[in-house]
């Protein structure tokens, strides 16, 4: 899986800034990653880490001003021709957006028009991208609703968004997004607002559709369970930067960045019988402090104020994103030491800042 296959999207050194009254918000500050054809790349990180701004930058939907793509390239393989999406004309971008890249959001209500029926909205997308008349487009709309698993699609086609449940609205969004047969689907927290039961339906649907259509998915989420379930590869973001990138199993089993380790340790796991029998002393391993404010990034490593492995050197320069082997990237000056622990030498405790200081 690693770095093989044909590249569909390559983001290189992307910087997206917002000029606000309080100063320059460096929402995305030099983000680099690649997404291969047919692959699902998950982007994880806590709120404010720059996930949405990254995806909106790829779609070129950043409001400008106050936003600005200050630097970097977004290389998109448009059926054999590589285009830099930061440079193509607005007309061309509109065509790419409609035909090659689609996006679904957390709250479908914001992207569905409340005054049109769902059928009209899908039909409009179909007429725009496929050479079909109104009657044919309606037929396609019903087909699409059926395709995404909406019961009684011939009735639902005439309903308005507010008449549908959250899960059904998300299915309608997916139907619209897929009506142009995109090469890339960007899904920004598509199941965050849904119940786990409905989330399971939507994730199942996305997996099936991906197998049928062969599209790539850029899946943005903060839920590590969803990442484990959906992703081939993972990008971990914090403070507008990529902290770690790699194959999903590597990220979960051999994380090379303290932020990734912290995230993994924060989530509760199923308890063993012994743990369950004596819960009094059980505590989660929380990351201390608060999520970093992109208006106020520390000078060195963005995670330094919360990192239990931090050394004085971490405060001096922004650590580079380094290849730790086989395309597993980490932005931490101490990744070799973590690798050594994972490969059987010593333990993490001896690497804690206080221990090192002694």
């Amino acid at each position: 899986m690693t770095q093989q296959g044909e590249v569909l999207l390559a983001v290189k050194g992307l910087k997206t800034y917002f000029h606000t009254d309080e100063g320059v918000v460096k929402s995305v500050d030099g983000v680099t990653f690649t997404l291969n054809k047919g692959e699902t790349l998950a982007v994880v990180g806590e709120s404010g880490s720059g996930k949405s701004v990254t995806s909106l930058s790829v779609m070129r939907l950043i409001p400008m001003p106050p936003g600005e793509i200050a630097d970097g390239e977004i290389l998109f393989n448009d059926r054999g021709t590589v285009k830099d999406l930061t440079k193509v004309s607005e007309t061309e971008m509109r065509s790419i957006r409609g035909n090659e890249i689609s996006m679904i959001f957390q709250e479908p209500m914001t992207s569905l028009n409340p005054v049109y029926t769902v059928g009209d909205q899908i039909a409009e997308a179909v007429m725009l991208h496929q050479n079909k008349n109104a009657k044919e487009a309606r037929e396609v709309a019903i087909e699409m609703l059926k395709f995404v698993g909406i019961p009684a699609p011939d009735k639902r086609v005439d309903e308005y968004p507010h008449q549908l449940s959250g899960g059904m609205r998300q299915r309608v969004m997916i139907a619209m997004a897929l009506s142009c047969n995109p090469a890339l689907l960007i899904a920004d927290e598509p199941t965050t607002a849904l119940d786990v039961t409905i989330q399971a339906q939507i994730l199942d649907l996305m997996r099936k559709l991906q197998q049928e259509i062969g599209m790539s998915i850029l899946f943005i989420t903060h839920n590590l369970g969803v990442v484990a379930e959906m992703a081939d590869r993972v990008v971990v973001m914090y403070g507008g930067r990529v902290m770690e990138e790699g194959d999903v199993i590597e990220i979960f089993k051999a994380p090379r960045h303290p932020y990734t380790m912290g995230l993994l340790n924060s989530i509760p796991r199923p308890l063993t019988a012994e743990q369950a029998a004596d819960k009094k002393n059980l505590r989660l391993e929380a990351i201390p402090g608060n999520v970093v404010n992109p208006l106020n990034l520390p000078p060195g490593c963005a995670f330094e104020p919360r990192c239990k492995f931090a050394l004085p050197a971490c405060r001096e320069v922004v650590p580079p994103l380094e290849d730790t082997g086989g395309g597993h990237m980490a932005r931490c000056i101490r990744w070799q030491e973590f690798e050594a622990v994972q490969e059987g030498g010593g333990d993490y405790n001896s690497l804690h800042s206080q221990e090192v200081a002694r």
Partner: protein
Amino acid sequence: MTRMDNDTPQGPQTDAATRTGATITEIIPGPAATLTVSDNVSASQTTAPAPVSADVTASAAGVQPSGAMQTVMIGTSVQTGEPVMAEVPAFTAAGERSEPLLSVRNLQKHFPIKGGFFGRTVGSVKAVDGVDFDLFRGEVVGLVGESGSGKTTVGRTLLRLVEPTGGDVIFKGQDVVKMNKRQLREVRRDMQIIFQDPFASLDPRMTVEEVIGEALDIHKLHQGAERKPRVAELLQRVGIRPEQMVRYPHEFSGGQRQRIGIARALAVSPDFIVADEPVSALDVSIQAQVVNLLQDLQQELGLTVLFIAHDLLVVEYICDRIIVMYLGKIMEIAPSHQLNNDPQHPYTEALLSAAPVPDPTIKRQRIILEGDIPSPINPPSGCVFRTRCRYAIPQCAEVVPALREVKPGQFKACIRDDIL
């Protein structure tokens, strides 16, 4: 049954023909099972007092097949309201416990729906529809279920922030439902609530000191010169620097706001707290901090907590027992580890199966519940879960399942004992 897979071992097949008078035989999807209902007492028959006797074969995964059976009430008939009896595998019941701190009996909340020209009541939303449970002193009990299942409404009716339509809430021996205003104010010193975003409902122009101080003023506690030190002490305890009490809610992050919400609830030293999704809106790293804080405080102060949430792993982590709700009713109650590892109700099984597991090496078949939770205005007859239950049989529409103990300390509202 373990939480990682869902191929239940096959239960012993019972030949329906070997049973006397058997007529209705249903082979249902999922684990093989045979439910036999005796002819002379069919589910639709109206002869009282014990109209139905169902022999249900014990599944291998269920209660150990000791062979002993007992006749119990498994529900009430939709048509007659009479009890429906069945013979089910016997087990030893859990030992008696001490007096509960809080006992909820047949709690109901039906929100009226207004319609027509004169705003007449044209129906009702059955948000909570006959709920029974006990909370024991010092216990942390989780309340889970899909959105709209009635969790918040239960939490609020306990404190009478929402007036119940019926039922009793016995707190320390007194019925909260029957209390007058003065008694209510008194009892609310002992019963507090924490919200998902404690500041959403508060005046943004109040400082943290005012927000917490207000809780003290209502009950005339720590007044005058004692007030500020008390606020400082509370903030300190939840991990906020006391000098920050002069700040406004919007100046704090989500996690800090939740800490302040906890301080506010603890200000009057309550015995019992309803925590309504206190960590659901927080980032995972911050969620872990707040979960740890809640655990520390609960143990230190011996609090009894009803913890409303939707993440079953978080709930297992901090709760002793878990209550699972669906469409205004309780589906299952069990000790948390037992519920997560050996669910007895099909809805619990499906909820557990739906939750994504943070381990990419585990690939599992999940149970996908079809469709959405039905409208609480017109809930399905009989078992409310039957429209999405993969084990549903015709009798499920005829019988409202009773919540009954099926293993020590584990209660379920499902008429079938031959499935999980």
